[in-house]
C-alpha cells in the first residue's frame, strides 16, 4: 500500500555510512546470480562486466550461478567470501532466504548490493540498484486500464509462482484494480517465464472464456506466447495487450502490431550496481537505493529500441558490441 511505499522511498533516500567498507584497490567483485539461464540476467551481467572494464582498479569479477536453488545461493556466497572478494553484487532467488548469509558478508566487511531485484530493506543489504516489480506492475496495470478505458475482463500472466516478481506484480495489479470496479480479473496464471507454457495456458483460457478484453503481462517473454495464442485463435482483435518489457521478441511484436509498448525493466541495473559499489569501497557516501528506470517505450517509438536483426531472446540496451552476448 501507499504508506509502505512511502516508507520505502524514504529508506531508499537514506545515506549509507560507507567508512567501514573503505578499502584500497585493487578490487575483486563477487557476483552471486540466483540463476544465469535467463537472457535478462545475462545482459545485466554484461553490464557489470562493461562497467568494471572502465575501472582499472577492478581486478577481477567472479560469477556464481545458483540455478534457482536458494540453498545453493547461500553456499555460493559462502564460497565467494572464502575467495576474499571486496564487493558482493547479487540478484536473489529469494530475498529472505539469503538475508542471513548476506548479513554474514556485511559482518565480514564486504558490502552487498542488490542488483536488479526489488528494494531490499535489510541490514544484510548495504545498497540497492533496484527495479521495483511493484511499480513496474503498477505502471503496466495503469497503462492497461487506460487502454481498456477502465472496463472489461482481463487475465493476468505471471512468472513462476512464489517468486517476488509474481507476488509483487499481482499485488500491484490488484491494488490498481481497486480503482477500476468495472474491470474484472478473470484469472491469474503462472507461465514460468516460459513462452510455450504461457501460450498453452492461454489456449486453454481462450476455451474457457468466450470474451477476454485485456491481458496483464509485464514480462514480454510471456506476452509473445499469449499474443500468439490469441492470434492463432483469430481473437487478437478482441484483446488489448498490456505493455511488456524491453525483451526484443516482444518489441518486435510491438513494432509489428503497434500496440502495448514496453515498461522497461532495464538490464542497466548491473552497471548502476557497480558504480554504487565502487563508491562504497572508496568511502564515498551513497544512498541506500537507486531506482533504475528507463522511459516507457510506446508503440510509436519502439523502432528506436527494437533490433529486428537480433534474436527474440535479447534485450534492448546500450551495451557496446564487444560486451554484447554472442548472437
Amino acid at each position: 500500500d501507499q504508506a509502505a511505499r512511502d516508507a520505502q522511498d524514504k529508506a531508499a533516500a537514506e545515506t549509507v555510512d560507507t567508512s567501514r567498507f573503505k578499502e584500497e584497490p585493487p578490487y575483486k567483485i563477487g557476483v552471486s546470480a540466483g540463476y544465469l539461464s535467463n537472457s535478462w540476467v545475462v545482459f545485466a551481467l554484461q553490464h557489470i562486466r562493461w562497467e568494471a572494464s572502465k575501472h582499472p582498479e577492478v581486478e577481477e569479477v567472479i560469477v556464481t550461478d545458483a540455478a534457482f536453488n536458494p540453498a545453493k545461493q547461500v553456499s555460493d556466497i559462502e564460497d565467494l567470501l572464502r575467495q576474499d572478494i571486496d564487493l558482493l553484487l547479487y540478484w536473489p532467488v529469494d530475498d529472505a532466504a539469503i538475508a542471513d548469509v548476506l548479513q554474514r558478508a556485511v559482518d565480514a566487511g564486504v558490502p552487498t548490493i542488490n542488483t536488479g531485484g526489488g528494494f531490499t530493506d535489510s541490514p544484510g543489504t548495504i545498497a540497492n540498484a533496484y527495479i521495483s516489480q511493484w511499480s513496474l506492475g503498477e505502471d503496466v496495470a495503469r497503462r492497461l486500464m487506460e487502454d481498456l478505458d477502465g472496463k472489461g475482463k482481463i487475465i493476468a500472466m505471471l512468472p513462476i509462482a512464489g517468486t517476488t516478481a509474481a507476488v509483487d506484480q499481482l499485488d500491484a495489479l490488484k491494488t490498481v484494480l481497486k480503482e477500476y470496479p468495472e474491470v474484472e480479473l478473470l484469472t491469474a496464471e503462472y507461465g514460468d517465464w516460459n513462452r510455450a507454457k504461457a501460450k498453452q495456458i492461454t489456449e486453454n483460457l481462450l476455451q474457457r472464456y468466450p470474451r477476454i478484453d485485456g491481458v496483464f503481462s509485464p514480462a514480454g517473454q510471456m506476452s509473445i506466447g499469449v499474443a500468439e495464442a490469441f492470434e492463432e485463435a483469430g481473437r487478437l482483435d478482441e484483446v488489448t495487450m498490456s505493455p511488456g518489457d524491453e525483451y526484443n521478441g516482444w518489441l518486435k511484436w510491438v513494432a509489428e502490431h503497434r500496440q502495448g509498448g514496453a515498461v522497461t525493466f532495464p538490464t542497466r541495473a548491473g552497471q548502476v550496481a557497480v558504480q554504487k559499489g565502487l563508491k562504497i569501497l572508496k568511502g564515498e557516501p551513497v544512498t541506500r537505493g537507486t531506482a533504475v528506470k528507463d522511459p516507457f517505450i510506446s508503440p510509436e517509438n519502439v523502432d528506436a529500441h527494437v533490433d529486428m536483426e537480433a534474436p527474440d531472446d535479447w534485450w534492448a540496451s546500450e551495451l557496446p558490441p564487444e560486451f554484447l552476448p554472442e548472437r
Partner: protein
Amino acid sequence: MTPEARARLDRLLAANAIFLALIAVWLVGAAVSDAFLMPNYLFNVVRQIAPVGIAAIGVTYVMILGGVDLSIGAVISLTAVFCAVQMDGDAANTLPAILLTCLVGMAIGAINGALVAFSRVTPFILTLGTAVAVYGLTQIYSGGTARGEVAPGFRDLANTRLDGLVPVLAIVFVALAALGLAVQKTTSFGRRLFLIGSNPQAALLSGLPVRRTTVIAYAVSGLFGALGGIALLARSGVSSTSAGQGLEFQVLAAVVLGGTTFEGGRGGIAGTVAGVLVLVMAFNLVNIVGLDYHLQLVVMGAIIILASALYGHLQARTGRA
C-alpha cells in the same frame, strides 16, 4: 463367461487400459466443457502436445528396451536453440538447419546409448548425468541467451491450419507417431527391442545384436528429442535456453501411463500417444474448469497416480506382473 474368454478379455483390457483412461478423461471433459466436442479444440490439443509427444515416441523405444532417457528435456532445449542459430533468420537455411539439428540429437543419443551398452550402469542415473552435461553445453553454446533466429515462414507453416482446421504441426506429430508405430510393429528392430527388454541375457544368447540395438534405440530417442525441440521451436519460437527443462518427466509420465514399464519388454507407441493425450487433456481440463494453479498441480499428481493404479490393477487381474 468361460474362464478362458474371461482371461482373454482381461488381457485385452489390461493392454488397452490407457485408451479407456483416455476416453474417460475425454468424457469428463465433454461433460464439463463443450470445447472437448469441438474438432478445432481437439486438433489444438494434438498440436499442443507435439513437442512432448514426439519426444515420447523415441523414449518409448528406449523404455521397451529396458532403458530410460532422462536427458530428453536437455536435448529438446539444446536442439531448439541450435536449430534457431542454424536457421539464422534465413529461409534458405531451413532444411539444412533441421537436418543438422537431427544429427546433433542423434549424436547425443548415440553417446548415451554407447555408454549404456558398453557398461553396466543404470541408465536412469546415467542419462540424468548426461542431462546436466547437455544442459551445461546448451548454456556454454548459447552464452545464456537463446540466440539465433527462426527462419521466416518456418513457424507460419508449422502453425497454419489446413482447411483452417488441422494444424500442420499436429499432422507432423501424427505422422511421426504412425511411423514410430510401424517401425515398432513391423521391423526386426522393433522386435529386437522387446526381446532385449524382456530378457537381455536370453537375447544375447539368441545371437541378437544387443549393443548395436541399444545404441540405435538411444540414438533414435535423441533424434526424436531433436524433432521435439524443432517442434517446440515451431510452436512457440525459442525464448530461453532451458525451454525443455522438466519435459523429461512429462515424457516419462506419458510413456509409463501408456503401459511401457521400467522393466522393459512391454508397451508401445500407441499407448504412449494415448498417455500424452491423457496428460495434456487432464491439464487442460483443470485449466478450463478454472481450478487455481496449486490445485492444478494436485489434480495432475492425482491423475498420474490414479491412472497408473488403474492400469496396474487391470494388469494384476490378468495375473501378470
